[in-house]
């Protein structure tokens, strides 16, 4: 009996010693603090970032850990200084800016389309929708797919009589921000009843977590309609709608139509909504995504090296990284937008001195 106990004891001690040694050793070849970067935010841009960062990792060995928790999450974590950068599809509003306390930079990365994706058994074609119809659907006033408002626009398509199941975001989302911004512009009723922002008081519908959650729900629920970034609908072979723009044309969301909408002169701080564009061929529910960082990078004892790594990553994103936008149907930065972005990046400082030369 003693022998077994002694054996157990010595084995336990050996095991714990060995494992602590392994643990300690592993820390050393894990990252030294500066070989990795942490970002969080927009699910809108997640497919693009996920590809970009994987390629960046192949190129430079830098591990960029991006968690797509929603734009609201990105902003919060940046405010709490628990991440290196946040990503959001809506620029900071006044309250968020005040909460940050210190100046932040919005660096545009790409623009994309918020599409209305739906799961209507028997209908694979792309339905045509107008702003009023969309607003009424999401306000809960149109409740069936074969409502007159919808069938009138889609004469050639037989629409089954399914109830409309709205799917919106359950988390704080830049996609919601873009979508509700659009709805507020085109529907005074929406603007007064619900308003626009990252998380609103939806009059009806289910909530999904992230664009992933929304597309997941729409894909599995017959009769559902939700709003997600274009690539989510494409990657999951889901149908999405054509939307009538300001100029009266029904626009199919695509790379070209988004580029048409985003081809504007960006203001110096790059904060702008491009919804309800007046470009003739522009898709009306488009939006930019920004990476948000602190202007002064010396906070919470960050090292110069880390700030440089971050800036170099972002520089790569807006230059070489742009090659990954079009295959995923995001619209790359226009020349004018690129210039603004470069200027903004160059204004980032460490201890007051510019980081990028």
């Amino acid at each position, binding site marked *: 009996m003693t022998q077994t106990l002694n054996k157990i004891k010595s084995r336990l001690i050996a095991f714990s010693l060995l494992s602590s040694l392994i643990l300690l050793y592993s820390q050393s070849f894990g990252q030294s603090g500066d070989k990795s970067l942490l970002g969080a935010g927009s699910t809108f841009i997640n*497919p693009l970032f*996920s590809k970009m960062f994987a390629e960046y990792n192949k190129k430079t060995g830098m591990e960029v850990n991006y968690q797509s928790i929603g734009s609201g999450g990105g902003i919060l974590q940046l405010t709490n200084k*628990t991440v290196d950068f946040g990503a959001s599809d809506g620029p900071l509003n006044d309250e968020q800016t005040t909460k940050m306390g210190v100046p932040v930079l919005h660096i545009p990365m790409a623009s994309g389309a918020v599409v209305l994706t739906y799961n209507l058994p028997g209908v694979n074609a792309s339905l045509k929708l107008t702003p009023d119809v969309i607003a009424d659907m999401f306000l809960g006033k149109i409740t069936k797919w074969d409502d007159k408002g919808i069938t009138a626009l889609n004469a050639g398509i037989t629409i089954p009589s399914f109830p409309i199941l709205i799917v919106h975001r359950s988390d704080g989302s830049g996609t919601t921000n873009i979508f509700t911004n659009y709805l507020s512009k085109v529907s005074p009723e929406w603007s007064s009843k619900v308003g626009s922002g990252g998380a609103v008081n939806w009059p009806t519908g289910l909530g999904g977590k992230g664009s992933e959650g929304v597309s997941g729900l729409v894909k599995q629920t017959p009769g559902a309609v939700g709003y997600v970034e274009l690539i989510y609908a494409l990657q999951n072979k889901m149908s999405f709608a054509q939307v009538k723009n300001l100029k009266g044309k029904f626009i199919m969301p695509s790379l070209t139509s988004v580029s048409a909408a985003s081809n504007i002169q960006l203001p110096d701080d790059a904060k702008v909504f491009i919804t309800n564009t007046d470009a003739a061929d522009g898709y009306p529910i488009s939006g930019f995504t920004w990476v948000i960082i602190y202007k002064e990078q010396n906070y919470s004892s960050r090292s110069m090296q880390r700030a440089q790594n971050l800036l170099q990553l972002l520089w790569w994103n807006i230059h070489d990284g742009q090659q990954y936008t079009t295959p995923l149907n995001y619209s790359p930065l226009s020349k004018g937008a690129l210039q603004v972005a470069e200027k903004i990046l160059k204004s980032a400082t460490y201890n007051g001195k510019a980081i990028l030369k």
Partner: protein
Amino acid sequence: MNAANIKFRIVKSKIMQVVIIAFAFAITLPLLFIIFYIFRQGITKINWTFLTRIPKPVGELGGGIANALLGSVLIVFVASIIAIPFGILCGIYLSENKTSRLSYWSRLTVDVLQGVPSIVIGIVVYFWIVKTVGTFSAFSGSIALAIMMLPILIRSTEETLKLIPSTLKEAGLALGLPYHKVILRVIVPCGISGILSGVMLSIARIAGETAPLLFTAFGNPYLSTNILKPMQSLPLLIFNYATSPYDDWHDLAWGAALILLLTVLLLNIITKITTRRWSVQL
């Protein structure tokens, strides 16, 4: 008391027996069905790539769950190292001091802790550690999990040690052994089976916990061993991939679910077997 009355009562009793047996039997169905379903979905997805690769970028096929596997192992390991000594010592104290004021409050708070929802613990650890240190980390996840392990560890240690006859302790003390030797060399080894089963149960409990990790370990698409940085873990992966629209992510989630389920069930089954064989006879 006529015959018809008695017959009716007997019939009623028989009927209730059938109903109860039917319901009891029905209980086994969901579990078996779930296990079977996960097994069927997951077993085809597990292969060498699955176990050794990390996930591919969104929308690309292939990839595996290596980062989540390693992450889960590391987080649980660190949580155990933190919680086990602490829990066992507290359990020893509670079994030795049944009536002191401190043991009353300690027992009370252990009971309270057992009922706290895991998400609340996640909030609190986020505030205590993640916000103060300034980064998400596997370590903060381990702390949250360790807090959840404690009630089970303390409870089982206390119950096991309470079962050991006090004559053992008295014999040891009477022979002149110092108190700490009596506890550590005589009493604890005596109850090692119960304590070990408590350890295994607590590990099984936290291995599948997701909520506390949502705001602490956060997740990481890369293979990482640095516990001071965010880390992926199996339950987080299952949660994120299951709610996504991508079919291949669903596949990964099934495989991960199978691995997690088997581990947890195995731990529980081993605990049952060992406790039965080593149960303290009185």
